């Protein structure tokens, strides 16, 4: 939707520095919530023997996703270029409908509110929301 301003980038980097130590827990909780609150997302994980939200596979996936988000923070100045390969992966191999990026982003924000209630101010929220939207857009880049 909109470009990230210098202030957005600064806000995202500062907040990420505070929370990245918990990135595994954040990712695991976000994926678990997504599977519970938006059960239609389970279709992408039909290959998991255990599809429950707190299964080892779900936790591992949450960790993977947040590592990607952390990587995106370092590439915040050119997400399209920086996430090129991940976009190819999502477009040609995973074929995740891009509507689901918004769903996972929402759950990441909910987890931030749960785990960092005082730091996740409205100002941080808007910048992080914009950042996740920009990441989602970059991930959709190669789709068609």
């Amino acid at each position, binding site marked *: 939707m909109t470009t990230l301003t210098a202030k957005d980038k600064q806000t995202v980097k500062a907040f990420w520095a505070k929370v990245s130590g918990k990135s595994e827990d954040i990712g695991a909780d976000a994926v678990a919530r997504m599977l519970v609150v938006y059960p239609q997302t389970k279709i992408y994980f039909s290959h998991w023997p255990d599809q429950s939200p707190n299964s080892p596979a779900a936790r591992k996936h949450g960790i993977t996703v947040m590592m990607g988000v952390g990587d995106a923070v370092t590439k915040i100045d050119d997400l399209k270029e920086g996430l090129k390969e991940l976009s190819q992966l999502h477009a040609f191999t995973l074929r995740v409908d891009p509507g689901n990026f918004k769903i996972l982003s929402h759950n990441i*924000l909910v987890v931030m*509110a749960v785990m960092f*209630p005082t730091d996740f101010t409205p*100002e941080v929220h808007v910048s992080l929301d914009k950042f996740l939207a920009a990441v989602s857009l970059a991930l959709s880049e190669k789709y068609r």
Partner: protein
Amino acid sequence: MPENSVSADLQTGSDKMVEWTDFERDTIKDIFSRIEYDVVGPAALARCLVVYPWTQRYFSGFGNLYNAAAIKGNPMVSKHGTTIMHGLDRAVKNLDDIENTYTELSVLHSEKLHVDPDNFKLLADCLTIVVAAQLGKEFTGEVQAAFQKFLAVVVSSLGRQYH
């Protein structure tokens, strides 16, 4: 589905009742009995005005909305945030007939206030975030699902009388 929100879209025809499990009923009532309306309401509305600044279009009579600090400190925003919570309270007390409970409010938002119904979902998302921050770990995935389902029914009912 509108660009910005991920609240579920519900299609409730007037002949279809929303069905609530016991867990959902208990969870929704429990949440609303624990949160302070005059804290959560103002925080959710202020957050909405900051995160989705185009929603400020409905509050041009509210004075200074110039930046996040001004929005948070604005007494009219606070008052309206509390009003919204009391409106939601009516839905909590009438879970089996939210649609009819909200007929007049829906007409009001459409005919008088001219609020784009997509914006209800934006406020709903902000309310979810604020309640999550209040309840912390107790806002589990299952609790989140019940709360978001409630808000989806509210949002759908508020949009029913638009034509």
